[in-house]
């Protein structure tokens, strides 16, 4: 039991921090422009694919650096020539634009790289078990993912709170018009944040690609979870995004690890049920089964009872 909890905790933190890398960019973009970028996870996917292609020719480490930069540049271009243009048609059009973009990127990825899963692997130098605990291995690559995620988190925190650029970004999040009045180039800030946000998503893709698989559906798998985090965490709150990422990461890993079902609960009270009844699926419902639902349940509950999110201070 202890071993289960230990590894679930570790895996949950790895997943959570990975999600945070996506969510941090998304929440900044969301709170600045008021647009929930549906294509954010698509940039994550592009990161993985770019890194895969680069790793064939130049190796993993070059890909780790170059791929996020490429994705960031692409993101900046999308903001400058796509989103800013669509802005004139209103918020709903922007939302639909990013949705269409997500659809298009998936098609383009399928067009360029094909539909099958790519053999994108971690570098050999990281292919060893870091330590063994109760007979279970903890791969070094996961520790590497953990390290990168924590590094990014600290860097982001320092930039946003300690640097001049960070102050302008924070100002632009809360009062974009006022910031523009003070002479800052807010559209440029938007473009920069969008680009950096996409680059972070790309980086997440680069390091998640070998662990979670590089295939055209990878954006779809993670995409809606990241929205959940942003909404649950609260608009414009990096802390909220961090807490929500860990929460969702842990929630999912623990729900999968702990194999309890409604049946077990019923047996505690000595209640049995009819195996043929229409509700049989309800009685045999187990935690691993409902694991994929939990984030969305959380999302709906949060939106109903606390529309500002856990740490947010204004409504979307």
């Amino acid at each position, binding site marked *: 039991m202890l071993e289960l909890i230990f590894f679930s905790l570790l895996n949950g933190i790895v997943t959570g921090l990975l999600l945070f890398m996506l969510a941090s960019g998304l929440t900044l973009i969301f709170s600045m422009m*008021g647009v*929930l970028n549906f294509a954010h996870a698509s940039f994550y996917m592009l990161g993985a694919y770019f890194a895969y292609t680069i790793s064939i020719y130049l190796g993993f480490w070059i890909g780790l650096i170059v791929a996020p930069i490429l994705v960031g540049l692409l993101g900046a271009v999308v903001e400058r020539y*796509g989103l800013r*243009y*669509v802005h004139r*048609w209103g*918020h*709903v*059009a922007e*939302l*639909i*634009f990013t*949705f*269409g*973009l997500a*659809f*298009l990127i*998936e*098609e*383009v990825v*399928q*067009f360029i790289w*094909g539909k099958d899963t790519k053999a994108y692997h971690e570098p050999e130098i990281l292919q060893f078990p870091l330590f063994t605990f109760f007979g279970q291995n903890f791969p070094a690559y996961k520790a590497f993912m953990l390290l990168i995620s924590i590094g990014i988190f600290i860097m982001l925190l320092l930039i946003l709170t300690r640097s001049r650029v960070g102050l302008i970004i924070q100002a632009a999040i809360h009062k974009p018009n006022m910031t523009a009045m003070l002479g800052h180039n807010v559209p440029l800030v938007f473009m920069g944040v969008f680009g950096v946000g996409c680059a972070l998503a790309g980086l997440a893709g680069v390091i998640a690609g070998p662990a979670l698989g590089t295939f055209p559906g990878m954006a*779809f798998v993670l995409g*809606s979870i990241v*929205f*959940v985090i942003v*909404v649950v965490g609260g608009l414009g709150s990096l802390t909220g995004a961090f807490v929500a990422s860990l929460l969702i990461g842990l929630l999912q890993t623990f729900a999968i690890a702990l194999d309890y079902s409604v049946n077990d609960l019923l047996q505690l009270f000595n209640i049995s049920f009819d195996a043929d009844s*229409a*509700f*049989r*699926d*309800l009685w045999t*419902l187990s935690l691993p*089964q*409902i694991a*994929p*639902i939990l984030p*969305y*349940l959380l*999302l*709906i509950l949060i*939106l*109903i009872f606390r*529309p500002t999110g856990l740490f947010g201070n204004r*409504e*979307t």
Partner: protein
Amino acid sequence: MSEITKTASPVASRPLLKTLTPWIGFLILLLALPNIFSSNVGLYTMNLMGIFIIFALSYNMLLGQGGMLSFGHAVYFGLGGFMSVHFMNYIEDGDFTFPMYLIPIFGGLIGLVFGIIIGSFSTRRAGTVFAMISLGVGELMAASSLIFVAFFGGEEGVSGDRTTGPELMGINFGQDIHIYYLIAGWVFVTVALMYLFSRTPAGRMANAVRDNAERAEFVGYSQRKVRFVSFCASGFFAGIAGGLFALNFEIVTEENLNALTSGTVLLMAYIGGVGFFIGPIVGAVVFTLLQSILSNYTDIWQLYVGILFVLTVMYVPQGLTGIIVMHTAAWRMRRIGLLVLPYLRAGIPALAMLTGIATFLETIHHMRSSVEGETAMSLMGVDFDSHGIVTWIVILALVVVGGYLTRSQLPQLRDAWEMANKPPAKAEGAGS
């Protein structure tokens, strides 16, 4: 945004015949179509079109008329389908007797029930909050559909048989043509009902709340209630569309209520034009045609649909219907003839450019997906070598020359457009 609201002349003052003309035309069209396209593929496509028309129109009750962007509309469509297919099975088992052609009613009812449940908490706000809740509900339902096997049938779905019900004048809906007339009948009735709904005070207030929720509140309407009514009605009609889907395909799977279907309906409504009542109809027709015709010729049709969608959102947010409506001013002033030649002059090179781009994409796709060493390919009946230098020269020429000529023709097109839309000297400043 909406052309319907702008031309809000009192209905009663118009002659009845003029009001009814489009509807009679619609009915005749529905009856005549199977005689024109009588092949199996034609019927299949038209059946799908009919289902999607209802589905897309019900979606537009939210997005176009109510200003609610939903990413989970397939939930009501899928639930309607599942409910209907279960009732089809009950009829088959002889549990109760009910005419098969009314089955979609049950689909509509379950759509309505879920619309009431979900609408009761999701319609409090429009905009991003609503979009997010709808996304959450959509994902929740899609995930649940794989868990609750008794109702959703798991991965393989639930199938039924539409021919087992009591016969209607000797028709048991065994043939595609029967199901076509059934769907056509439902399309006519539901389209009329949805149109009438947009004319009721509830429909009108939905427009008001979409445009300015605060002012609607000051007039005395609760924005939440107005949205709720639209939401429930929309769920009802989506459920009917789902029921027809179940009748037509006799199988409903998890795919019918997942995010992909929700995305498809958004695509259809938006490409068609959400600001107009007939927009989603146009969108559903165009999308189904693209889906069934384009997919015969190319594997990458979804790529084209994606490009079309993004371009529509960027440059023509009024949709295809919007483009047509843009020309009504010139049409009324009998100056549409001025535009024909400029359109041809810009359109032909543009077509050449598009052909070049499409050929480029197809050739690349062929090079990647074909067997090693196979370079011969054919496109629209033209055979060529995908690695040949001539091919690439032709592609390059089409794109560059076509693009350059299109660009050079744009100024004269703009002039012609202004000429055609210039208000007449004595007119009272009627713009577009």
